[in-house]
């Protein structure tokens, strides 16, 4: 560990140090305000630490982690998303008395896991990041434990996630047995050296199991069963973190693993991913139609969105020039994370004083347009972005995906994308329509007592979604240089 390595790992060090400080603070004196301040400061510093780290990139630090622009960029995105979640959670927890300091500690640790995932170039780092991310989330999901729903969600996530991790490990073990390496680059060398030819079945089986395990975290069909229940039970800000940051981080890790270890060469694997993608798009969108709970709608919509994202993997594997596909994946992840955070932030914010249950039924949103125009605007922009309507980040993401798909001539996947998006319009519009009706339903609070931080986050998220939709060139150019 020399100085350059320390500099490269600065974001991780900042987050780790922040977690330690926070732990000390809680043990000395419980004070929610302080815990909150330390968390947000740590996350913002972690994001800012990208700048010094970038000066030493690219740099391999131990076989486990690599400091490169891709990891740094997404690492800081996850830090910022963690900060957004923290701010919304602060407002959300105000009316939920109790010892909430550890909530922020868990959030910090979870974000640290996500950042490690973005850095990982080794199976061990991947598992480390994944478990850190998930274990903290088990507790976060059940944190406000009021009623059985959060507990049920947490147990469900715990058990299924354990099974998924086991599958994942077994898959890696099979690959290790065949190739004798756990390092991505080394695996790629072994595959191209022809060592795979001796035991192709073992490798394919291993890769399939790895995909099943990671597919669970990404909640692609058929590993999606837990998603709606967990999102419904978890506190709204945590659902947002789960849908946005957790999935985004795992996707970045998958992208790295897939590309750097050379698994994209297996056409049967690509065929499998194609099937998963089409199934996710259709099942996610169709089941979303049947829901009346907004969190469940968003859960199914996130299943569909991950289905869209899988197109990137296939396109990167098929096309001789994977640059465009990877770029599309990067842009889509950024747009998806921001949009998902925005959507769940709204649910968190209107549920500030909702008492025992959250305002997450469709009917709770009736008339929101006229009662709280600012929040309704946030949700409308987020839904339009999820639906892929122009002038929003989601549209550019979809545009990118379609160009990558056209470039690789994936007509079947594109057909699924078009059909899925058209179905998607229906339930996104249904929410918007409900917000415009003049409802006599329970009034979800007023904007007046919202904390300054939450207000700021609302405006920032709206700005980010519109900016990325109207002026996409800077981010496109940047992604191009780092991917």
């Amino acid at each position, binding site marked *: 560990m020399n100085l350059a390595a320390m500099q490269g790992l600065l974001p991780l060090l900042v987050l780790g140090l922040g977690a330690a400080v926070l732990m000390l603070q809680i043990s000395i004196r419980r004070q929610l305000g302080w815990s909150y301040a330390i968390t947000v400061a740590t996350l913002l510093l972690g994001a800012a630490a990208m700048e010094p780290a970038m000066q030493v990139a690219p740099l391999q630090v131990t076989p486990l982690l690599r400091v490169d622009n891709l990891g740094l960029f997404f690492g800081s995105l996850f830090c910022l998303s963690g900060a957004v979640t923290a701010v919304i959670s602060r407002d959300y927890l105000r009316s939920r008395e109790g010892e909430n300091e550890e909530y922020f500690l868990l959030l910090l640790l979870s974000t640290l896991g996500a950042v490690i995932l973005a850095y990982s170039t080794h199976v061990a780092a991947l598992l480390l990041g994944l478990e850190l991310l998930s274990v903290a989330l088990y507790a976060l999901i059940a944190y406000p434990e009021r009623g059985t729903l959060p507990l049920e969600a947490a147990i469900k996530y715990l058990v299924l996630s354990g099974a998924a991790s086991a599958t994942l490990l077994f898959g890696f073990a099979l690959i290790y047995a065949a190739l004798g390496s756990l390092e991505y680059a080394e695996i790629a060398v072994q595959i191209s050296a022809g060592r795979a030819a001796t035991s192709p079945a073992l490798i394919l089986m291993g890769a399939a199991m790895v995909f099943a395990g990671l597919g669970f975290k990404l909640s692609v069909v058929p590993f999606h069963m837990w998603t709606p229940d967990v999102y419904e039970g978890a506190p709204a800000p945590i659902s947002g973190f789960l849908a946005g940051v957790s999935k985004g981080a795992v996707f970045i890790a998958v992208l790295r693993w897939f590309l750097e270890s050379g698994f994209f060469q297996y056409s049967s694997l690509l065929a499998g991913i194609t099937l998963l993608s089409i199934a996710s798009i259709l099942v996610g969108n169709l089941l979303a139609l049947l829901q009346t709970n907004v969190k469940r709608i968003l859960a199914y919509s996130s299943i569909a969105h991950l289905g869209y994202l899988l197109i990137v993997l296939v396109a990167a594997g098929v096309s001789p020039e994977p640059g465009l596909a990877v770029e599309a994946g990067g842009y889509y992840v950024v747009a998806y994370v921001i949009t998902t955070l925005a959507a769940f932030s709204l649910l968190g914010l209107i549920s500030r004083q909702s008492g025992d249950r959250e305002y997450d039924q469709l009917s709770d949103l009736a008339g929101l347009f006229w009662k709280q125009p600012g929040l309704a605007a946030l949700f409308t922009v987020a839904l339009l972005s999820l639906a892929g309507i122009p002038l929003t980040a989601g549209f550019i993401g979809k545009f990118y995906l*379609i160009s990558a798909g056209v470039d690789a001539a994936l007509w079947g996947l594109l057909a699924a994308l078009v059909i899925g998006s*058209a179905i998607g*319009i*229906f339930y996104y519009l249904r929410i918007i329509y409900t917000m*415009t009706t003049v409802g006599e339903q329970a009034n979800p609070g007023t904007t007046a007592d919202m904390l300054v931080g939450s207000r700021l986050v609302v405006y920032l998220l709206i700005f980010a979604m519109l900016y990325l939709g109207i002026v996409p*060139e800077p981010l*496109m150019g940047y992604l191009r240089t780092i991917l």
Partner: protein
Amino acid sequence: MLLLDLIILLFAGGALAWWSESRSAKAPRWLALAFLSLGLLYLLGGVMQIPEQQFSLIPQPDNPQTWLLHYRVDWIPRFGINFELAMDGLSLILVTLTLLLGGVAVVSSWDEISFRPGFFQANLLWTLAGVVGVFLAMDLFLFFLFWEVMLVPMYLLIAIWGHEQKAFASMKFFLFTQFSGLLLLLAILVLASIHANNSGSYSFSYFDLLGTAMSPQLGFWVMLGFFIAFTVKLPAFPFHTWLPDAHTQAPTAGSVILAGILLKTGAYGLLRFTIPLFPQASVDFAPVAMALGAASVIYGAVLAFAQTDFKRLVAYSSVSHMGFVLLGLYAWNILAVQGAVMQMVAHGLSTAALFMTAGALQQRLHTRDMRRMGGLWHNMPRMGATAMFFALASLGLPGLGNFVGEFLVLVGLFAVNPWLAVIAAIGLITAAVYALIMMQHAFQGTPDPQRQLTDYGPREMAAMGVLIIGLLWLGLYPQPVLDVAQPVLESLLAGGAP
């Protein structure tokens, strides 16, 4: 710059109208009217300054300087996307129509809207801004963007201020257009990708994409993506089913701009993009397209005849009239295409007036059911007379604009496909049937003595007057419009010639 200013003006006007809502309930409509008039004056003032000979210049696809106005800045260089607006005679006619009918729409909903009037006018102006953008955009990415931008505020207009079945109608409208929009996006991207493979760099510029070489098979599929997107909007049989619902449920101003302008974006898309970009595929496809057009003419007319709802009747008559436009476009000779353009303008004016009438009736009688009307001429002679005028225009009375359009289409079509021309001509007879039935049911017959109704006031008469003058002008002296469109159409015909 003028083109950009125009779009910004409409967007800003909408925002201002929304803001003014909190000050006064009456301010938004005055602001909307002021901004639309300002836009129209600004446009006409700007066009006046263009030298006369520029109008007779044939706009070259490879030289934007030959266009009336052209504006371009880099936007997303990564994909070769520019913010590129350009105006030729065709766009000039359609943008003028848009602004004019926008003003009519504001006047028609003058005291109809009491719920959130500012947000209403804002959505109206934003829809118009999107439409103006559609008529001016010369970059396919930008075109698609405006294509979708006009959709969202239009959706809100129907969903918030619509009638009893607004949820269903607005959803159906959005789903149809959005699904076809996705096909359009896919087709645009395939086209751009083919171009990128041919030339090595991405571009979405209309001028670059014209003449892109591709295999006939692929060309057919891509063309089909464009075709479906635009015929859904037009709408032609069998993609028309969203239209009666959307038009019937929309508030008056919404129906006016939906029928008057939004439908024309579909025809414009076919004329400007589908046929010139895929000349060969379009020639192969023309018989199918023309058959759909003829089917729309007859089918729309028959269904219009069967309606009892005043607005639905007018909506189906739009399907019939837009069938003529489709026929004219795919006959693809100068007479027929001139006729299609003329029909677009005339239909915009006459249908706008009929929807205004429907809105006025609904406001006074609280119904659109013609079985509960009758003898209204007696109660409201001014409304009866204007309705008669526009019904006659709609059935194609010589001397009014619609006749010129339909006549030119039929003459042009006869040279290409006489049998379809014969079938389409039947549409003129059926049009007479449903237009006169409408007049009979609503305005003639015995008046209800209990009924006390207020006739049109000066505001409504002013709006109607503008439309009447417009139709008379188009019918009696259509040459100026034909002259403005002529060079453009010649250039399009030359580019897309078989």
